[in-house]
């Protein structure tokens, strides 16, 4: 029997390393799969204030992936606590609440409001624009990352995860800043800013012009970032980006991720997370790992030449 449990720090231990990515999961999935089979549940990002989201079209297909400019439509924290949280209290899988805010203080205020039963951890979506810094996302730079995380750390004893943006030149430095400020884990990463144009209408395909790229197309990029972050920090790294199969998840674990989030894949295959969990179990069994934790250390990344033809002889 393979031990799938993972320890994400500050007392939070998941039954398995697979959970949804924020914004790609909601109550509706309970109609299709058993949510208690997941390692954790992660909400769509909520904000303190009411927000409307972006103009349509909000999504577009690209080769092996999608663009979205959903934005963060939110009914506010009150509505979440009153209307949504009770639904999730009906499940045993721990609930991670994703929050966002336009300023450091607002992040702290939002985090403080989540010290209520039924919430297992906070995921701070710091990939959103910081209105005090010219709209640049907090997670684009170590300094603003540190400020936002430190402010939240002061007001909550819940496990606090920082979700990083891939739209930065040095994600390892940002991860180190999050760690230094007291984050219990980093999630690597959010969507990559991208764009497509309809050459017939000569308009951007998205109503918002630009949007975030996700799905299999981004996997080699966010996997690299996961590897870089896992080497840079001691807190757990949660890998996210393009995971659709157990093989994808195993790549992330080998790269150093303690757990993974599955996003876009759930849209095209609602049972994707279940398949990933079953497949990881099978992979561990086949490769002789007693636990998924063992997969973390198994990468052989000595810089060395190896021959693609090896298997042939």
């Amino acid at each position, binding site marked *: 029997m393979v031990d799938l449990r993972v320890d994400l720090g500050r007392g939070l231990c998941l039954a398995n390393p697979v959970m949804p990515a924020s*914004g*790609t*999961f*909601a*109550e*509706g*999935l*309970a*109609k*299709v799969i058993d949510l208690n089979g997941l390692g954790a549940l992660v909400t*769509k990002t909520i904000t303190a204030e009411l927000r*409307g*989201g972006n103009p*349509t*079209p*909000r*999504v577009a*297909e*690209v*080769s*092996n*992936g*999608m663009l*979205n400019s*959903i934005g963060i*439509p939110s009914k506010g924290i009150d509505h979440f606590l009153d209307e949504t949280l009770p*639904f999730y209290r009906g499940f045993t899988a721990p609930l991670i609440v994703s929050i966002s805010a336009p300023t450091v203080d607002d992040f702290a205020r939002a985090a403080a409001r989540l010290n209520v039963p039924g919430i297992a951890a906070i995921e701070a979506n710091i990939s959103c624009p910081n209105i005090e810094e010219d709209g640049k996302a907090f997670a684009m730079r170590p300094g603003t990352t540190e400020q936002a995380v430190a402010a939240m750390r002061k007001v909550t004893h819940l496990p606090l995860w920082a979700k990083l943006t891939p739209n930065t030149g040095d994600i390892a430095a940002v991860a180190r800043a999050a760690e230094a400020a007291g984050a219990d884990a980093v999630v690597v990463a959010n969507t990559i800013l991208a764009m497509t144009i309809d050459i017939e209408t000569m308009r951007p395909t998205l109503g918002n012009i630009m949007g975030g790229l996700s*799905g299999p197309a981004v996997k080699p990029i966010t996997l690299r970032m996961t590897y870089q972050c896992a080497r840079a920090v001691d807190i757990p790294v949660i890998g996210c980006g393009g995971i659709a199969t157990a093989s994808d998840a195993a790549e992330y674990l080998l790269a150093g991720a303690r757990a993974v989030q599955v996003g876009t894949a*759930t*849209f*095209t*295959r*609602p*049972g994707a997370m279940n398949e990933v969990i079953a497949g990881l179990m099978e992979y561990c069994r086949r490769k002789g790992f007693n636990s998924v934790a063992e997969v973390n250390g198994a990468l052989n990344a000595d810089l060395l030449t190896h021959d693609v033809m090896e298997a042939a002889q």
Partner: protein
Amino acid sequence: MRQADTLGVAPPADPFSAQVADTVARVIVNDWVNAEYKLIELDAPGVAADAAAGQFFNIECPATGEDKPFFRRPMSTYAADPSAGRVQFLYKVAGAGTRGLATLIPGQTTRILGPLGMGFSLPETAKSIVVLGRGVGLATLAPLAELAQQRGVAVTALISARASEQVLSVERFRAAGAEVETVLDSDGTSDLGNVEAILRHLHAQGRADGFYTCGSNRLMLLMQRLSAELGIFGEVAMEQQMACGLGMCYCCVRNFTIDGETVSKRVCWDGPVFPLAEATSW
């Protein structure tokens, strides 16, 4: 709250309790019905065939050569037969996804997620309804005619099309006991003035205590205006681009007007059928 409830209609199923499955469905037939539309029939065991009128499925469309549809494509159930475990979709071959769908041959399988969304409701007081559709909208409205027949409600189907070659589903509506009237662009009968005259006439005859529409913004606006003026219960089935079909991604939102306020709703989750009074132009 849905307008339907206030009229004392059987409330639609609780969105959380209804079951949805991602079914591996086997193709029985997938044939052209005219130059643009195909009808696909699928063997879909389990809950799939429980689809109610106005509900839809999110269908995996195979990649073919240049076309690599990444998302699934939403399609209304054109017919569902729980006893045989069969579902049918009538679809227009338009872009990458439907071109891929069109390549499926009997015996092949594809995944269909559903039944999804909130379907049509019939007021308990309704005796005679009018369905007004155009294009793919008729695929969505056809099962409503059968539902009405089961409930003993008379149906007048007003079918709008470019020309007679594009007129769809007449037999289907007739078989469900509907009175069918066709209006065409080619002979000018489809213009809004004429359609309005027909609707007013039906109402005057007492044949219109429910208005249902799908597939045309202009026709929706017309029905909306008349239903308000004449006090007729009305619903519209809306379309919007979808990714998840399950209320998770918020890409399928449209604006609705409720008590004078603009409210954003997810077409896949809160709809696709909405009170006609709340709809806004698209």
